[in-house]
C-alpha cells in the first residue's frame, strides 16, 4: 500500500494532525489526529510502498516491542488508514 498524495502532517493546537493540502485532498474533511508513534510511522513510510509487515518491523525496531504485538498494532493502524482513505492498497 501507499500513502495517498496530498496529505501533510502538521501541529494543530499542539497535536499532530493530518491536513489534506494537495489538489486532490483540499476537500478532505476528517480530523485525523496522530500520537507520536503513529506520526513517526507515517513519516517513515511517506512516499514509499509498504505492507503491514513493514510497518510491524519498523515499530518493533524503533520501539523495541515484540513482533506479535507490533504486527497487531501495525494491522490496526493500517486498517484505520485504509478506512479513512489515507492510503491506497
Amino acid at each position, binding site marked *: 500500500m501507499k500513502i495517498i498524495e496530498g496529505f501533510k502532517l502538521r501541529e494543530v493546537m499542539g497535536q499532530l494532525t493530518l491536513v489534506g493540502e494537495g489538489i486532490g485532498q483540499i476537500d478532505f474533511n476528517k480530523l485525523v*489526529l496522530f500520537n507520536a508513534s503513529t506520526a513517526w510511522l507515517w513519516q517513515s513510510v511517506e512516499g514509499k510502498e509498504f505492507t503491514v509487515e513493514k510497518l510491524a518491523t519498523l515499530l518493533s525496531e524503533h520501539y523495541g516491542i515484540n513482533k506479535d504485538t507490533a504486527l497487531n498494532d501495525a494491522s490496526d493502524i493500517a486498517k484505520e488508514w485504509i478506512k479513512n482513505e489515507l492510503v491506497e492498497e
Partner: protein
Amino acid sequence: MNREWLQLLRLLSSGLWDRPVDKVVFFGPTDWNGVFTFASQQTVIGLVAEAINRLPADLQPPQEAIRQLQMLLVQNRQRHILLNRTLVEITDLLQKENIHPVLLKGQGVALNYIESALRQCGDIDLYIGTDDYQKACIVVDRWNGKDENSQESKKHYHLCHQGVNIELHRIAECMSMPWHNARFQRWTRQNLHGDNLRRVYINSTEINLPPFNFDVLYIFNHAWCHFIAGGISLRQLCDWARYLHTFRTEIDRDELKKNLKAFGLWHAWQLFGYIAVKYIGLPKEDCPFYTNWYSWQTERILDMIQKGGNFGFFQTHVKDRPDGYWAGKWFSFKKMHHHFYRLLPICPQNVFQAWIRFLYMGVYRI
C-alpha cells in the same frame, strides 16, 4: 466589560503577537460558548484557538470543543491553500495577457501574521485599474465560464471560481467626498502603477503588492469605511495592527500624516489606533500618531464592534431586510440612520460625509 468579551480580547492579543495569555481573566468558570461566539463573529477563531493552546490544561475548554477548534483550523488552512492556488492561477492568466494585477488585502495581508493560516481568509481582491479592466473581465470570464452570479459595480467585477470569490477592481476604493475621492484616485494611480509596487512570492509565483505607505492607509481606510457603513470585526483591526508592526520601519510617517489629513482620516486613524494599542496589543511605538485623547469615543466604537461583529451582521436589534423594493429602501434608510445616530458623537464629520453619500447613492440607485 462583559467577561467573555474580555477573555476574547486577551486570547486575541496573545494569538496575534505570540505572547503568553493573561491567565487571570480565566480563573473561575468560563462560558466557552460565549467566547467562541465572539471569536466567530469577529472572524478571529484561528488566533483565539492558538492562544487557547497556551492556557494551562485546567483552564482550557473541554476536549470536544478543542476538537471543533482543530477542525476549524484545518479547514481554514485548506481554505488558505485553495485561495493561494486560485490567486496564482488568475495572476498567471492575467500576466500572460500583459495585465499586471495588484493584490489588495487578503492573502497579501495574511503574510504579515506570525502564521498566515491563523488569519481567517475571505476573498481575493485584485486591482486592475481602468485601462485594463474590460480586457481583464473578458479574460477571467473565458477562464471561469460566464457565471450568472457574477456582478459588476462601479468599483469592481465580482465572480466566483470553484467556491472562491474574486473581485477585479477597476478602482481600489471610493471615498465619500468628491474632493477626497479625486485626490484618492490620483494617489492610487501613482502608487499602484509603475515601479513602486512590492513583490512577494506565493507558491513560486511573483505577486504584486501595493507600496507600504499606500497599503497601510488603504487597509486602514477599508476598515474605517466598513465601520462607517455598517460595522467591522476585530480581524480587520488585526490586519491593520499586524501591518503597522511588521512594516514599522518602512512606513514613512511624514508622508502618512500628510495623506491622512488630505483624505480627512486623521481623527479616524487616532480612534482606531487607541483600540489597536489598548485592546489588541499593538506596541504603542508602532502606532503612528497614537493618542489616548479619545478614549471615551473608542470605548463606544469597541462596543459597536462587539455587538455588530463582522460587517455589522450580528446586530441583534436589526431584522432581515423585507422583500418589497420600497419596503427594502425604507428598511435600509431606517437602519443606516440608526447606525449614523450612534456614530454621530464619535466622529461627526465622517458621519455627515457618509450620510450625504448614503442619500446620494440611495437616490442614484432608484
